[in-house]
């Protein structure tokens, strides 16, 4: 198999590639091609996973066993999961794949072989019809060097066979043959602050504002809900900041020298300080607007700002809650436009 079938660079990927790069990979490629500042990276395509699974299947059935377990048989799922996860983690990668992965890693990191990376699962069913599936996949932060990358790629694959993941698919009756896992490998942002933003207000559905939430350190603290983030509401069009809720942020997520991340207390002077400046909010707004414009629909976006103040976008997915509702018109044109003023002058009725 050619290395391009195993590995795809963000700059070569669009949303149309989702069947082979997964939702996350497709989105990062699409954003990169749209000129959005996304940390550089590549995707280990589903073909690599398929090849790997094929090797496992040769040794002993895998997918058939998953399909055979009953959705409500929790003990059975637990037992199966333990076995399958171990198999995924122990099976060496085929040579061609390992070579392609190392080459891509070397190209991504250049002369800084241990540049910190994020390894994130990108399932083909993720981010699409069923957003909640996204939460079942894994992300590994601050991954250092080719060995760690290889291990975490395998860990992402293994996460498909975690207990909740199997249980979820069994409950939905999803055929295993259609479940594949791509893995995103990308440069890690040493985030000074990070968070999420919404191009449509989660609370009111208002399309004219951008809601930005953020906290100190890596975005995992916000996404996991461990820290109540600062919250800002800004006018999408003119950028006026109409809400500014600065919260006490007692902890933050930071990278570990040996790889991985940990939680530490936020320095006292930062705890109640806003994690982003007004200029950064404006930059976030501008980027959110570009992304929304590119996709033509409201987006939920993950972002990070590094210590030099550079903004990076880590993820963007379509907003699903409000967009699912039928838009009811607020008003409609009147034969005589002046009749509108009766809304004000007509009094309450």
């Amino acid at each position: 198999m050619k290395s391009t079938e195993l590995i795809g660079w963000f700059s070569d990927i669009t949303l149309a590639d989702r069947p082979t790069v997964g939702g996350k990979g497709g989105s990062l490629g699409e954003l990169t091609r749209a000129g959005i500042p996304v940390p550089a990276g590549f995707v280990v395509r589903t073909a690599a996973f398929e090849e790997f699974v094929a090797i496992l299947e040769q040794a002993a059935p895998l997918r058939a066993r998953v399909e055979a377990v009953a959705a409500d048989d929790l003990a059975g799922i637990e037992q199966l999961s333990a076995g399958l996860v171990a198999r995924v983690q122990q099976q060496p990668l085929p040579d061609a794949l390992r070579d392609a992965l190392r080459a891509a890693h070397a190209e991504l990191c250049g002369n800084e072989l241990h540049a910190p990376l994020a390894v994130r699962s990108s399932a083909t069913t993720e981010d699409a019809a069923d957003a909640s599936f996204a939460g079942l996949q894994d992300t590994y932060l601050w991954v250092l060097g080719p060995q760690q990358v290889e291990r975490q790629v395998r860990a992402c694959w293994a996460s498909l066979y975690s207990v909740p993941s199997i249980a979820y698919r069994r409950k939905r009756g999803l055929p295993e043959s259609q479940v594949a896992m791509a893995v995103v490998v990308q440069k890690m942002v040493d985030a000074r602050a990070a968070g999420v933003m919404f191009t449509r207000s989660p609370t009111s559905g208002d399309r004219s504002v951008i809601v930005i939430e953020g906290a100190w350190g890596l975005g995992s603290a916000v996404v996991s809900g461990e820290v109540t983030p600062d919250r800002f509401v800004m006018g999408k069009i003119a950028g006026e900041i109409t809400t500014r809720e600065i919260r006490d942020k007692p902890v933050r997520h930071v990278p570990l020298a040996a790889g991985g991340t940990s939680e530490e207390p936020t320095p006292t002077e930062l705890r109640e300080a806003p994690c982003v400046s007004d200029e950064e909010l404006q930059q976030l707004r501008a980027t959110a607007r570009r992304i929304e414009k590119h996709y033509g629909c409201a987006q939920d976006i993950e972002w990070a700002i590094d210590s030099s103040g550079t903004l990076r976008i880590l993820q963007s997915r379509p907003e699903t809650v409000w967009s699912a509702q039928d838009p009811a018109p607020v008003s409609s044109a009147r034969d005589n436009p002046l009749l509108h003023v009766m809304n004000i002058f007509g009094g309450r009725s």
Partner: protein
Amino acid sequence: MKGFPLPSSLKIVPGTERAQAAFPYYMQFGPEDDQRFWFYNSMHFPEPMHAFDSVTGEAAYCALGAANTRVHCLPTVKGIDERLINGRVYISGVAATDPAEIKERTEEFMQRAFYYYENWETLYAQWKDKMRALIEDAQKLPAPELPKYEPLANVRAGRGIASNHWLLDTYQKTLEGYFRMWHHHFEFLLLGYGAYMTFFAFCKKAFPEISDQSIARMVAGIEAEIFRPDDELRRLARVAVQLGVEQPFQDGSTVHTILESLKGMGAPGKKWLEELESSRHPWFNVNVGDGFYHYHRSWNDDLSLPFSALPTYIRQVKGGDKLERPVNQLLEERAQLVSDYRELLSTDEDRAAFDQMVGLAHRVFPYVEGHKFYCEHWYTNLFFNKIREFGKLLAGHGFFDKEEDVFHLTHYELKSAIIDLMQSWSAGSPPRGVAHWPALVKERREAVASWAKHDTPPALGPVPDVIDDPAIVMLWGITRESLDAWLTAGNSSGSKELRGFAASRGVVEGTARVVKSVEEISRLRDGDILVCQVTNPTWSPVFNKIAAAVSDIGGSMSHAAIVAREYGLPAVVGTGTATRTIRDGQRIRVDGGRGIVTMLD
């Protein structure tokens, strides 16, 4: 029940009882007034009223009520009742609540108001002609004077009517013109605000979290007269640099020194003075206040305010700034804003409704922003200066010490004093007023000073469930929520935060300068945050200096808000209590995007 003090519980400040009694009987609170909700109109009348100045409320509410109640027949809203206590103006809206009456009024309204909307441009052009004619009439009124003998020419012309009669004639015409001007003022105003509010309410529904200022910016005028005085100042700064006569304009130089230096600078100096004259008439007819008090003198009366801005403007010109308002760019920005919001709407129906409403708002807005120059500034200035002429005449005849003392007489009393003088002139005997007025004037001067030292509650009486009078919401920024905030502020003085309308975005920290009257403007230093009862657009040279503005009263469409946006200055208006809560010199943070003022120490 939660509520404000009842009118009957307010005490007249001891020693001012007679000054209070001087206000006409129909402005005094009565027992039946306890049943109604009143609020202190500190937006228009932030300081205690002199006896004469109370004519402004009278004339204005007479006209506002006529327009609402009888002319356009607003279906649910009638006029405004006014009371004065301790020199403070309290007002209360009158509503139509009977469904049959509302139905009848609705039919009338649609025949009347709709005609105005449909013919807005024509009627507004006609309005400007009427206003210019009214101004011209006022300018033509002669200075009141009494010659020793009737001029021989008058006698030989067989004029028959003697000079003393013209005092009464001029005075009555002056007063009548002022009442008439206010009718013009309100001819379109509520319709204009209503059209704007229609659009405003639509935006709030379609975009629940949209800021007031974004809506305002979609309709804000670009070439409104209200910006013109300041534009003229900038022009004069440019001209000074072009002519090379900028040297005399130094910070702290007096107007007199500057004018004398220019006169000594030959042709270029003379040329600049000519340019000054062309700017002054009419554009310097702007008051340093809202024009509702006799002491809100105009730039023309006192050049020190406009001149104080010139050194800064000249420095900016020399620094390469053209100091021109980029009108085309502003227009494009507005159009872009409108089209961007339009695009965000969910349905084609909404877009069609939006087009209709924004179209109407754009149609009415030139009046909303433009009328004030003609009415509150130019005309009001002529009016008070004419009264001042009577003051000079009466002071000359010993009625009181100074011409300004005339403003301690009500307009009824002034008429009596004029007739007294007319009689004395005709009889050849001394006027009775010489023995009558000096003591009263002294008493009233002390009363005004005493009232100014006493705070007055922001509102009186029971709190209404809802406030749905568009005039009150729009002009005064008073809503049920803001009243609740006022009530809370009264109860918890420990709060570090004040909330108001987010009038103009931006966050600034600085030193608060609590300015309680126009005279205190000079205390403002570069970078100070102006805290006042009501901000005024014609303080624009001050806006050039301050870092932010906070006011007690004002809605997102108050002129303060409009001009703050124009100057890109953070502003929070309608806080209710800023001048009482914030200490002079205190460090505060103004967040104009959120409408929050935080006291930092």
